[in-house]
């Protein structure tokens, strides 16, 4: 991933964008931070947060025009948060110690005018280490705040907060009016001058003016026509043209410019975040119950600490997290995409040293729901898939990560399953049925029946068995994917490029994305149009429809499936997340292989979406849900199931069963349709095993297939390389057919009679990937 790409992706995730209140506040008070501390009951910390942006919280907490309130998203659920009152509570009830100053810079700044703009400018510049002289024409300080009645702003609060300027070391000179030529003197004596004399001042100090007679300033920098002289506040904004908080913002803007000016930095670079702006944060508020504002028992005294805490509790707080809300994977890693893309970028950039995010990258189901719900369509699926490709290219993909699935793919494309033929008795195909490896592994009988139905309805329908190559794509193996596509393409060509009928939406998507020359139809579209098998019927009870995640971009498929269910008179419940917002069953992207605990949680979450039994049209979704106890039907069960209710409860086939089902399917169609025998199978296939359900379950969890065990025993029995336990008499043998060494503890079961084949009882099986080398002892 290039750095500019990272920045682009980071910018798409707006979770870290300031919330509406902070964005609307001219000084950008961190309202969410304040709220967090108030909820904890830590008023001192809350005050520290407020004061980071706001020098006079007691004054502002009483007098601010509070643009934050109209921006607050609580408005959409009850009333806006009383942010100003909360700031006041922080100021009144929190303890404050004067802030630290930066080391003295030795440069001198004159600020003319003791109103809100001048006060903030003086305060900010003093904190930055400048020597600041504040000149006020009258006395005392405070400008327009002086005009407010005592009950609105007690003098004690005003004077208390303004006295901090002198505590910090600002030299305040009262009754020091500056007029006309006075600016020349100031400019001679000081390194920079800020003019903030207020709206009532008509003085323009000989500076360039606007047509209405005000001092002309650059709106971004507050610079006047004279070098080193800046102007801010209502002097510039005009009478009644701005609240005190806007004047303060302007004073801060001028102070920032002066700091840059005196340090020789650019006055204009990166200043877009100053002043109020519309928030980029996307927030959905419709899920929140409306709540009224907490009223202070004594309005004059303001909130007590407890009242402030209760009011703070009303803040949501604002967050986007649209993707995290709907994705168990994104939620479990406890962050959000802006952080995740940075982690992935860092992970891919590590040259030497441990890469900590490999499992994270391999755990994504690549289902694309995040991109669908994201206001900016940031799609982690694309990010994770590309990251996997990079890992493979760098030679840093953990070898074990996708191995099992890739071997399954290779197996499905071997002579044990793969096949491409015209319909029996024909020499051309108008269509070809591609049922996909998982449906054949789960429901071979239904595939056989469906192939018959398609031939009956459509005539010349060929058959292609094999894997589409999705595991290669999910593993980031572009090399294997290219090989597989070439194989599919060759098979398709050999049949004369007929229209492909796909039963699996993962195959459908893969064909669509990578074999654009192939004309495609989903099986559901074909059935919807060409008619259902005669025995098709609805289940007795209502079913909830789960759309497989690879149908997300296929609305027509959603429609055809619903139409078929409707034709059957099926009572269908729609799940809250369905169609383009459907969830993955954890098979996608090989999540189930990379992160089993997460995969379990993903399935649990999905099957908890409704108490109703599910129906779906992906064999893996069905089997993964059923494996965790959710009665789930496959759409084909309605077409061919003898006892539909029972079909919903059938257990998921294990990985070995899936192989066996595929072999059985191929053998059956070869024999029945083409009158042929299976091509020669590997010799170990004839080894007969007796495996208890417990051992079978263990093998399943350890991803050890029956054929792996057969190979170990064949090797041990042929070579004699095995151990025997003196007590139990069991044999133990290890064998490494490829990358993994399998160990099997077994005993031969003596043939019970003449002509009986030898069988082996399997007691245990385990595996490892480390290699073992032993020199000849001696």
């Amino acid at each position: 991933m290039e750095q500019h790409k990272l920045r682009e992706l980071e910018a798409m995730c707006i979770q870290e964008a300031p919330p509406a209140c902070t964005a609307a506040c001219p000084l950008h008070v961190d309202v969410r931070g304040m709220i967090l501390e108030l909820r904890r009951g830590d008023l001192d910390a809350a005050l520290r947060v407020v004061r980071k942006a706001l020098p006079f919280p007691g004054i502002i907490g009483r007098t601010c025009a509070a643009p934050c309130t109209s921006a607050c998203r609580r408005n959409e659920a009850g009333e806006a948060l009383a942010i100003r009152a909360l700031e006041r509570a922080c100021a009144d009830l929190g303890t404050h110690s004067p802030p630290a100053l930066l080391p003295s810079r030795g440069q001198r700044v004159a600020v003319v005018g003791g109103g809100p703009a001048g006060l903030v400018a003086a305060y900010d510049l003093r904190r930055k280490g400048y020597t600041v002289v504040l000149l006020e024409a009258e006395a005392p300080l405070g400008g327009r705040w002086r005009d407010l009645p005592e009950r609105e702003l007690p003098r004690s609060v005003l004077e208390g907060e303004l006295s901090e300027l002198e505590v910090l070391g600002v030299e305040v000179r009262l009754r020091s009016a500056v007029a006309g030529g006075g600016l020349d003197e100031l400019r001679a004596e000081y390194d920079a001058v800020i003019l903030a004399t207020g709206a009532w001042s008509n003085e323009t100090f000989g500076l360039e003016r606007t047509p209405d007679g005000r001092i002309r300033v650059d709106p971004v920098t507050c610079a006047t026509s004279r070098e080193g002289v800046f102007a801010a506040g209502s002097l510039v904004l005009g009478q009644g043209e701005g609240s005190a908080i806007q004047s303060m913002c302007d004073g801060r803007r001028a102070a920032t410019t002066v700091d840059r000016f005196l340090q020789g930095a650019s006055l204009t670079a990166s200043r877009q975040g100053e002043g109020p702006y519309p928030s980029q944060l996307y927030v959905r508020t419709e899920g929140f119950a409306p709540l009224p504002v907490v009223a202070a028992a004594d309005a004059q005294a303001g909130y007590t600490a407890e009242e402030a805490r209760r009011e703070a509790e009303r803040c949501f707080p604002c967050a986007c997290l649209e993707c995290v809300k709907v994705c168990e994977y994104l939620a479990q890693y406890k962050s959000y995409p802006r952080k995740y893309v940075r982690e992935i970028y860092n992970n891919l950039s590590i040259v030497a040293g441990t890469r900590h995010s490999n499992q994270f990258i391999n755990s994504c189901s690549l289902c694309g729901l995040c991109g669908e719900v994201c206001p900016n369509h940031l799609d982690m699926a694309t990010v994770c898939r590309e990251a996997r490709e990079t890992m493979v290219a760098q030679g840093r993909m953990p070898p074990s990560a996708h191995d099992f699935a890739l071997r399954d793919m290779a197996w499905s494309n071997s002579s044990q399953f793969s096949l491409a033929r015209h319909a029996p008795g024909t020499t051309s195909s108008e269509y070809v049925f591609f049922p996909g490896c998982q449906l054949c592994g789960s429901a071979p009988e239904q595939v056989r029946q469906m192939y018959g139905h398609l031939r009956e309805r459509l005539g010349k329908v060929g058959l292609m068995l094999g894997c589409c190559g999705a595991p290669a794509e999910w593993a980031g193996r572009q090399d294997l994917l290219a090989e597989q596509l070439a194989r599919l393409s060759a098979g398709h060509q050999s049949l004369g490029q007929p229209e492909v009928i796909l039963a699996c939406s993962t195959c459908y998507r893969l064909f669509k994305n990578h074999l654009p020359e192939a004309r495609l139809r989903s099986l559901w579209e074909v059935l919807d149009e060409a008619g259902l098998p005669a025995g098709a019927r609805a289940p007795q009870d209502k079913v909830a429809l789960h759309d497989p995640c690879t149908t997300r971009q296929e609305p027509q498929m959603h429609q055809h499936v619903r139409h078929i269910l409707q034709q059957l008179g099926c009572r269908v419940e729609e799940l809250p997340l369905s169609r383009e917002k459907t969830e993955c069953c954890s098979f996608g992207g090989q999540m189930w292989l990379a992160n089993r605990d997460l995969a379990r949680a993903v399935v649990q979450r999905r099957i908890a979406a409704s108490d109703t039994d599910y129906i779906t049209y992906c064999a893996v979704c069905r089997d993964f849900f059923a494996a965790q106890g959710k009665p789930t039907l496959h759409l084909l069960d309605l077409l061919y199931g003898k006892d539909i209710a029972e079909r919903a409860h059938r257990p998921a086939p294990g990985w070995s069963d899936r192989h066996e089902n595929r072999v059985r399917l191929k053998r059956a169609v070869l024999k029945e349709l083409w009158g042929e025998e299976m091509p020669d199978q590997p010799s170990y296939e004839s080894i007969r095993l007796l495996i208890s359900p417990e051992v079978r379950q263990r093998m399943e969890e350890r991803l050890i297939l029956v054929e792996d065990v057969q190979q170990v025993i064949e090797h041990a029995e042929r070579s004699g390389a095995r151990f025997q336990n003196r007590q139990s008499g069991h044999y133990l043998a290890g064998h490494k057919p490829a990358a993994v060494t399998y160990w099997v503890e077994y005993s031969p079961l003596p043939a019970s009679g003449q002509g009986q084949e030898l069988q082996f009882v399997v007691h245990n099986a385990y595996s490892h990937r480390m290699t073992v080398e032993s020199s000849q002892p001696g």
Partner: protein
Amino acid sequence: MSENQKATATPEWVCVRCGVPLEPGKVNVGYLDSAFPVDLPRCPRCGQVLIAEELALGKMADVEKQLEDK
């Protein structure tokens, strides 16, 4: 990686080809670009090594995971 404890648990295993009980012996286990010498039960005649279930699923699995950055 030391796996002496496995050696003690294996005198009941006999190498069928050579007909002798296993004894602890130095062998090299490796993965990716790393290799470690360890003591494991093996046949003192033909050198065939036995990897016990506890070792395969315990220490070996841990080391594999570590070396893979998985």
